[in-house]
């Protein structure tokens, strides 16, 4: 792991790009790949953490930063990569699952929105797609996936924070993720997407209360992660389907991933319960990331063992 990068502060996008390049240069485990481009033509990269091996491996996908203002999410994805690289030799759990699994980490999906939240409007949520001849901006990328798109918990008004776009996968950021996941779906065992607050591990679905066929196992694994959090940190995460414990939403990446056949699909809503909301102070980054690391590795370990 390159020295000098501070994981307990927030970083603007230019520093995250630089960090990805440095990580790739300095580790034999990591490669950086082009995923696609944003509305404003910026390049989206993801990192692949892969231990060299002759045997075929399955994939765990994790993305962060779909909502621009949720800065703790990209901070977590970076923390996660650092922890894996620092500990894969000494930590038996990480060492074990890396023998069977490759980790694909997308630190920031909504790059345009993230930059906009740094430079112009800290509480910006959506991407930066222009609509109505440039009179309003932004699609909520987590309402834009092709999973019961536009059916519930969205708005068709482009001024809304939950505007679902002009059609399923209308946004290049959504298409970029969807294309890669579609290509690799037979090898992807687990899709994790990280959000900012509420202390939830959310299971599919948000668009219907009908549970998925493997609901029992999905719940059991999430509850195991929540129990680990409670046991070590005393943090009380609530587990359940989005529609039953939070609210209805359609077009989410979590629902889409499960609908195309990825068996384990979860949304993490991290540790703040409203004290700071979307403006979690930097001194909260470390405790948030430490506990989230435990929850995420608990899930990955289960998937690996299975």
């Amino acid at each position, binding site marked *: 792991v390159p020295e000098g990068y501070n994981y307990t502060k927030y970083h603007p996008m230019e520093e995250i790009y630089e960090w990805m390049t440095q990580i790739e240069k300095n580790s034999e485990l990591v490669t950086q790949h082009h995923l696609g481009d944003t509305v404003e033509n910026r390049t989206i990269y993801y990192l692949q953490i892969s231990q060299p091996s002759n045997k075929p491996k399955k994939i765990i996908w994790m993305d962060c930063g779909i909502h621009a203002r949720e800065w703790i999410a990209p901070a977590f994805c970076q923390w996660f990569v650092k922890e894996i690289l620092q500990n894969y030799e000494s930590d038996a759990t990480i060492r074990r699952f890396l023998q069977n699994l490759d980790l694909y980490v997308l630190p920031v999906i909504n790059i345009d929105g993230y930059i906009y939240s740094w430079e112009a409007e800290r*509480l910006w949520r959506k991407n930066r797609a222009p609509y109505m001849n440039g009179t309003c901006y932004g699609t909520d990328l987590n309402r834009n996936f092709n999973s019961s798109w536009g059916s519930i918990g969205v708005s068709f008004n482009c001024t809304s924070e939950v505007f679902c776009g002009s059609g399923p996968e209308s946004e290049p950021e959504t298409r970029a993720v969807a294309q890669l996941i579609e290509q690799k779906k037979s090898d992807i065992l687990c899709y994790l997407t990280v959000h900012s607050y509420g202390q939830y591990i959310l299971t599919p679905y948000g668009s219907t209360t009908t549970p998925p066929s493997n609901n029992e196992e999905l719940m059991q694994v999430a509850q195991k992660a929540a129990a680990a959090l409670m046991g070590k940190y005393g943090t009380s995460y609530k587990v359940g389907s989005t529609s039953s414990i939070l*609210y209805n939403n359609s077009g989410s990446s979590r629902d889409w991933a499960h609908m195309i056949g990825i068996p384990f699909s979860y949304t993490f809503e991290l540790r703040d319960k*409203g004290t700071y*909301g979307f*403006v*979690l*102070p930097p001194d909260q980054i470390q405790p948030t990331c430490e506990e989230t690391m435990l929850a995420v590795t608990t899930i990955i370990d289960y998937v690996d063992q299975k």
Partner: protein
Amino acid sequence: YDGDQVLHIVPETFQQVQHLQHLCSTLMLDLWKPQLLEDIRAGEDLHIRVPAPLVQEVKDSLDQHMISYKVLINDVQELVDESTLKERSQRQ
């Protein structure tokens, strides 16, 4: 976000829910939780960011309708500064 506040409200009745939906929609308040007006429900948490010029008006309206509230964030800008100003000075 100077002086913007985030309020925490748990509406108790359907009438309170209706009033909150009306207030949020007419004043175009930023819903933090839930994200849609129709998801505001009795007995469930509502977090809203209220722009500084509207803070008093919103609080008066809540008082008039006997809706209790708690201030979660007293000044959003202070929190924003805490993360970004420090970053800028560190980078310099």
